[in-house]
C-alpha cells in the first residue's frame, strides 16, 4: 500500500519545510519566484556543448538549501525519481552525435557526450531550483505571488485548489485501494476491471465534491473572484536579494568562469 500512500505524505513534508523561519523563508515570495525564473531561463540558454559553463550555477540551489535549512538528501531523492525520464531523452545523444568535440589527454570526448552531460546538468539545476523554491516558500505563497505579478487569476486559483484538494482526493483513492486490496487476498482482485470502475467512481465523487465546494463558496459570497490577503510591500533586503542573485547569474552567463580559471591556472603553471 505504501506505493499509493507515500506520495501524499511527501507533499506534506514539502509544505512543513516551507513553514520554517530562516532568512530565505523571510524573503518576499515574488522576489523568490522572479529569481528562480531568471535562474531557469539562464540555465536553459546555455549552449548544448557547454556543460562546464553550467557548473558554477549550482551555487544557487545549494546556497538556498544551506541557508533555508532544507535537507539535501530530500531534494536529491526527488531529483532521482524524475531522472529516468530525462535520461531517456538524453540517452541517445552520445550514440547519434559521434563528432569529436574535445580531447582530454588521450581520450576524445564526442559532442554527443557533451550534450548528454549538459542536458543532465540543466535538469539538475532547474528542477532543484524549483523544488527549493517550493520548500522555502510554500505553494499558497507562490500562488499569491504569481497573482500579485499579474498571472491570470484563473490559473492561480486552479493551482491553489489543486494543491488543497490533492490531499482529499489522495485520501479517497487510498481508502478505495485499501478496500480493494483487503478483499483481493493477494490475488489481482479482478485486475484492470476493478481499477477502471474505481477510477470512474473517483471521478464521480470528485464531481460531487466540486459541487459541494462550490455551494460552500456561494454561501460565503463567492462571485467568481478569490481576493487574496494583503500583499506587503517589498523591503530593501528583498531587492538586494533579487539584484544580488540576478547579477551573479548574469556574470556567470557572460563570462565562462571554469574556462577562465583553466586559462589562469594554465598560465600560472
Amino acid at each position, binding site marked *: 500500500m505504501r506505493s499509493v500512500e507515500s506520495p501524499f505524505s511527501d507533499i*506534506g513534508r514539502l*509544505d512543513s519545510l516551507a*513553514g520554517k523561519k530562516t532568512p530565505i523563508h523571510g524573503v518576499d515570495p515574488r522576489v523568490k519566484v522572479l529569481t528562480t525564473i531568471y535562474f531557469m531561463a539562464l540555465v536553459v540558454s546555455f549552449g548544448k556543448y557547454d556543460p562546464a559553463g553550467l557548473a558554477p550555477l549550482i551555487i544557487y540551489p545549494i546556497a538556498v538549501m544551506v541557508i533555508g535549512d532544507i535537507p539535501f538528501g530530500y531534494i536529491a531523492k526527488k531529483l532521482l525519481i524524475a531522472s529516468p525520464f530525462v535520461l531517456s531523452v538524453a540517452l541517445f545523444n552520445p550514440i547519434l552525435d559521434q563528432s569529436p568535440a574535445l580531447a582530454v589527454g588521450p581520450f576524445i570526448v564526442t559532442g554527443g557526450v557533451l550534450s548528454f552531460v549538459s542536458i543532465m546538468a540543466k535538469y539538475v539545476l532547474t528542477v532543484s531550483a524549483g523544488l527549493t523554491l517550493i520548500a522555502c516558500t510554500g*505553494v*499558497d505563497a507562490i*500562488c499569491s505571488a504569481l497573482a500579485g505579478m499579474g498571472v491570470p487569476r484563473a490559473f492561480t486559483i486552479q493551482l*491553489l*485548489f489543486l*494543491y*488543497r*484538494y490533492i*490531499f*482529499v482526493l489522495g485520501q479517497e483513492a487510498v481508502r478505495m485501494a485499501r478496500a480493494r486490496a483487503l478483499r483481493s487476498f493477494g490475488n489481482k482482485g479482478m485486475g484492470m476491471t476493478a481499477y477502471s470502475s474505481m477510477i470512474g467512481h473517483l471521478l464521480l465523487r470528485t464531481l460531487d*465534491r466540486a459541487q*459541494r*465546494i462550490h*455551494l*460552500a*463558496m*456561494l*454561501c*460565503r*459570497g*463567492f*462571485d467568481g473572484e*478569490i*481576493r*487574496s*490577503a*494583503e500583499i506587503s510591500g517589498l523591503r530593501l533586503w528583498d531587492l538586494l536579494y533579487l539584484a544580488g542573485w540576478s547579477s551573479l547569474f548574469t556574470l556567470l552567463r557572460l563570462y565562462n568562469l571554469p574556462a577562465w580559471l583553466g586559462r589562469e591556472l594554465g598560465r600560472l603553471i
Partner: protein
Amino acid sequence: MSHHLVEVRELKFAYPDGTPALNGVNFRITHGESVALVGANGAGKSTLLLHLNGYLVPQAGSVRIGDIPITKNTLKHVRQVVGMVFQDPDDQLFLPRVYDDVAFGPTNLGLPPDEVKQRTLNALALVGAEHLRDRPPYKLSGGEKRAVSIATVLAMSPSILVMDEPTSNLDPRSRRQLIRLLSEFDHTKIIATHDMDMVLDLCSRAIVLRNGEVAADGAARDILGDLELLDSSGLEKPLRMQGCPICGNH
C-alpha cells in the same frame, strides 16, 4: 423587522429524476430559537437546508428569511444572514491556510481590510482556534476542522446558523466541546442531526420530518419522549432517556 425569522410555507421540491423530496413543508422559527431538524435518512432534511440559503429554489411555496422572500436579488443578503455549516468540513475549508479561509467570507462582503482582519481573528478566538491560523486545513484533526468551519461562518456575522450534522465523526470530547460552544451562541440555530442526545442539550424545539412532510413540531422534550412518533419516523429516544442496560432501571 427581525433578521432572525425563518418562515417556510407549503414548500415543495422534487429532484430532476422525479424523486419527491419535500411535499409541502410548513414552519416558522423566530428570534433566538434553537431548533432541531430530525428525521430518518432520506426524510428531506438536507434538501430543506439547501432551500434555507437559496441554493435550491422552491418549486412551490416560499421561504422567507427575516421577512424577505428568497429571490435572485435578495440572495446576497440572505446568504450573509444565514450562515451554513456543512457536514464535511473538507467541503467548507477550501483555501490552503486557515486564516485565508476564515477571511474569505468577510472579504467577499467587501469589508475594509482592517475589519476583515478583526472579524477573522474574533471568529477564530470564539471557537478557540487562534493557534491554528497559519496551518493548512488538511493537517487539522476532525474536531479542529469542525471548529474552524464554524469560524468561517461566524466571521460573516450571520443572524441564523444552519448546521448539517455538526457532531458527526467527532470523538466524545470534541463533541462535548462543540455542544458547549454552540450553547453559548445566541444566534437562531437550525440543526439537522441524528444525534438525539445533542438535541436534548441544545434545542428547545424539534421538527420531525417524515417522507418530506412535517410529522411533528413542538417542544423537544415532548417529542423526544413520544415513542410512537419517534418509532414511526425512524428515530429513537436519546440514550440518556433510555433505560440503563446494566441495572435495567428506567
